[in-house]
């Protein structure tokens, strides 16, 4: 029997990887991919607790997370296309039009 803390540890490592990716990568598309890694880490946590505490709630919320991730990907990629049309770049350092 695998202990619950093993799943939580895997999820923590994945979440840290995604967070680091959001912080250090400069390509907007890869920043969005790192956000997907973080969402996946949260999903692992929810499903693991759902299994070990004999409850369905975690799996339901995990399904909602996947739906939110789909919406986030669609909106994020649409924003990338709009920005790319104007500036021919997906570097987050060059997206500073809304900065004052």
């Amino acid at each position, binding site marked *: *029997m*695998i202990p*619950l*803390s*093993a*799943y939580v*540890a*895997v999820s*923590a*490592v*994945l979440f*840290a*990887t*995604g*967070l*680091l*990716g959001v*912080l*250090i*990568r*400069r*390509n907007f*598309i*890869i920043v*969005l*991919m790192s956000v*997907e*890694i973080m969402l*996946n880490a949260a*999903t*692992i946590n929810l*499903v693991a607790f*759902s*299994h*070990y*505490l*004999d*409850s*369905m*709630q975690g*799996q*339901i919320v*995990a*399904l*909602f997370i*996947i739906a939110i*991730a*789909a*919406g986030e*990907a*669609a*909106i994020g*990629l*649409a*924003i*990338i*296309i*709009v920005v790319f049309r104007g500036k021919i770049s*997906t*570097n987050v350092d060059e997206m500073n039009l809304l900065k004052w």
Partner: protein
Amino acid sequence: MAFVFFAYFAVVSIVAGILTVSLKHPVQCGLALLALLLHVSGLFIMLNAEFLWAVQVIVYAGAILVLYLFVLMLLNLKTDDRYFHAKTPYLLAPAAIGLVYLLFLLVRSPFSGAKGDATSAAILQNGDAHAIGIKMFSEYLLQFEIIGVFLTGAIVGAIVLAKAPKSIETRRDA
């Protein structure tokens, strides 16, 4: 036996996550993300969540990842010389220290709580999809409808954002 599978899925998903963050070419990052998603879905199988496994493979690996790769191919990105933040070396050490401390705290935590009634034996009687469906369309119906409205709004927003704007010439004619 279960431990071998768990170790495989865990190690490969962590390695794929690190590759996604560190590889240089965006398409290679997307393929590493695909490996990550498939191995995370393997972890769902280990946790008796077959329905989530199917949803993860179909929605994440099948739809979301294809959307990412489609946009990557559409934009035809050249690899940037500066693809990391300038201060990356200074970020790595605090991140590693913070992660080790977090893992130390997690392993020491007891992790217990009120147990529900959905035991593994109860779920296996009718299958995971049945159990999720009963719960989703009774207790979580409102949240389900909200997610539906959210997805509709997201897809309309994406279409409006990505629609090509009319050029100035045609606007003047109208």
